[in-house]
């Protein structure tokens, strides 16, 4: 949420000297600039204030009295003792989901990049379907299909399947975008001419050159997996709760401060991932530009 567009210079009335044009712009700049700044601050406040309130709620003795009731880590401690299982499960699921989407997604992206055609586009669209379809429907379909396998239904593996279905298109798209930007076919032909067989080409040339796409996709997958609620809500059992499910549970059944403290824990996990993603997208732009 930053001011994105530079203001246009004001309309020139009479044929002005370059200097007077510059001054006119300064004047227009300052007025527009402050208007935009005010708007930006307002929007930021709209987004940030609830977060700050939530964090304060999680740290204060009594939310209804306010911060003057005193700050405490007691609620965070309670969250830890009640819900640490959900944190570990969420982390484990995110990593498993990452592994699965890497193993599936990178080869899929490679095949799609190597064989651009109608079938490939159709498959790509099909892959994105779980993002468009409500998570509840996806989850219901999984339950209908696999619900009968008791062991599978009760394990966290069931949630993992839901997460992979949901996050795979993000990995594929991210990797595909980078692969489409590099001259994949010629790079592979060059490696082949130097004697490299398929696996050497794939792991020595293609994967390293798609690394920015893979890294961006990986961060996206982990972030989405950690925060996924819709599908997980339908697929979870009392023994397989993830952070968002636990969070809903805490807000529904415990005092507000604990739910808020839980939110803090969630932030601590998710914010570094978001920052890393942002940083990566900035790193990647010059690297791609420099290749041309």
């Amino acid at each position: 949420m930053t001011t994105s567009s530079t203001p246009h210079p004001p309309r020139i009335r009479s044929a002005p000297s370059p200097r007077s044009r510059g001054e006119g712009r300064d004047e227009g700049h300052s007025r527009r600039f402050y208007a935009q700044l005010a708007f930006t601050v307002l929007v930021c406040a709209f987004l940030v204030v609830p977060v700050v309130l939530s964090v304060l709620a999680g740290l204060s003795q009594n939310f209804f009295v306010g911060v003057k009731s005193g700050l405490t880590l007691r609620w965070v401690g309670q969250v830890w003792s009640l819900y640490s299982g959900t944190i570990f499960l969420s982390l484990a699921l995110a990593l498993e989901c990452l592994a699965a989407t890497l193993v599936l997604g990178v080869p899929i992206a490679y095949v799609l990049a190597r064989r651009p055609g109608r079938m490939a586009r159709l498959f790509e669209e099909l892959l994105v379907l779980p993002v468009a379809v409500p998570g509840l429907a996806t989850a219901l379909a999984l339950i209908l299909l696999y619900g009968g396998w008791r062991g599978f239904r009760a394990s966290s593996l069931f949630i993992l399947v839901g997460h992979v279905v949901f996050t795979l298109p993000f990995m594929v798209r991210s990797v595909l975008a980078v692969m489409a930007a590099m001259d994949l076919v010629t790079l592979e032909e060059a490696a082949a001419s130097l004697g490299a067989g398929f696996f050497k080409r794939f792991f020595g040339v293609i994967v390293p050159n798609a690394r920015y796409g893979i890294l961006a996709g990986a961060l996206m997958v982990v972030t989405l997996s950690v925060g996924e609620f819709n599908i997980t809500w339908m697929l979870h059992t009392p023994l397989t709760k993830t952070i968002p499910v636990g969070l809903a549970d805490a807000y529904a059944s415990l005092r507000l401060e604990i739910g808020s403290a839980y939110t803090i824990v969630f932030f601590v996990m998710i914010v570094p991932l978001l920052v890393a993603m942002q940083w990566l997208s900035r790193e990647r732009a010059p690297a791609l530009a420099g290749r041309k």
Partner: protein
Amino acid sequence: MSAEGRPEREFRPPGSSEVAKPRAWGDHNDAASVRLAECAKTFADGTRALLPLNLDIQAGETVVFLGPSGCGKTTLLRIIAGLAQPDAGGRVFFGDDDVTARPIERRNVGMVFQSYALFPNMTVAENVAYGLRVRRIRGDERRRQAAKLLDMMHLAGLGDRRVDQLSGGQRQRVALARALAVKPRVLLLDEPLTALDAKLRESLRVDIDRLLRSLGVTAVYVTHDQAEAMALGDRVAVMSHGRVEQIGAPQDIYYRPASAFVADFIGTMNRVSGQRDGASLRFPGGMLRLPGHAMAADHAMFRPQDARIVEPGAGALTGRVAAAFFLGSMTRVVVDLPGEQTIVIDTVERRSFVNGEAIGVDVDADALVILES
């Protein structure tokens, strides 16, 4: 100089004596002859990219395939490389070794692409050493050879750079070093200079020429640039519509074109037609004496620089100056002959021409080109 059916014998795992004592780069013994037998290529949509072709390329020879885009020259290169398969019945031999069924990675070729195709994830030196790494050459030996090649390509000291820190000309030098590092049996160059600007193209062309000669590597070079083809090729094969129209030394192609296409594609060629009269060709603008072998010809062709400007009426042809362009090293004069024929003459004479001025033109009989049929 042929490889005599000894595939992949050059780079053994560490410890082998050949690796411990690598040859000098000037001694390129791995160069193989290339033989194409009945190689044709039909694409899935029925397009005939290449008509059946038989061709021998000597070991150490540079053959340039020259032609307009879509003439089949790149398809031919890809068939030799192993990136494309000839239609059933076609065979590719390196020396006596039938490599038709072998994919490119097992043919031990070197390839240079128009788009450089350097690996962006590796440094310059790592790019050059990639083929050696694939062949499991030891790290220090790899680095030594890469440094030597970079030195040879005037890139000494750039080994640690990233690829995107190099200019286009430097990149193509790296690509060339990378292709030569594996001591290929055949070096394949696919329009390597097309992406460069004119000046760089010239200097890199000279370098490539020097390299190909000094290393004695068998090279197949594809281009649409006739000057490049003339300068680099021991032989030039002019291609059109999937067929080799003519193959021969650059001088042969230039002075003795075998078809109208070759005559028109290479340089500028004047063509005058008229009535046969004994040993001469008569037309409204004059009369040309034909060489003895031109039996039934109704036309004659000649290069702009083979014509001399003489006094009006003194030469074989008489015409009027339609336009004259001073190009520095010469003047190009466009001459209208009576009867709607136009010819172009290049002259180094230090005089100016006036449009409409009457001039005479003389052409030696042995400079005339006459195509059969």
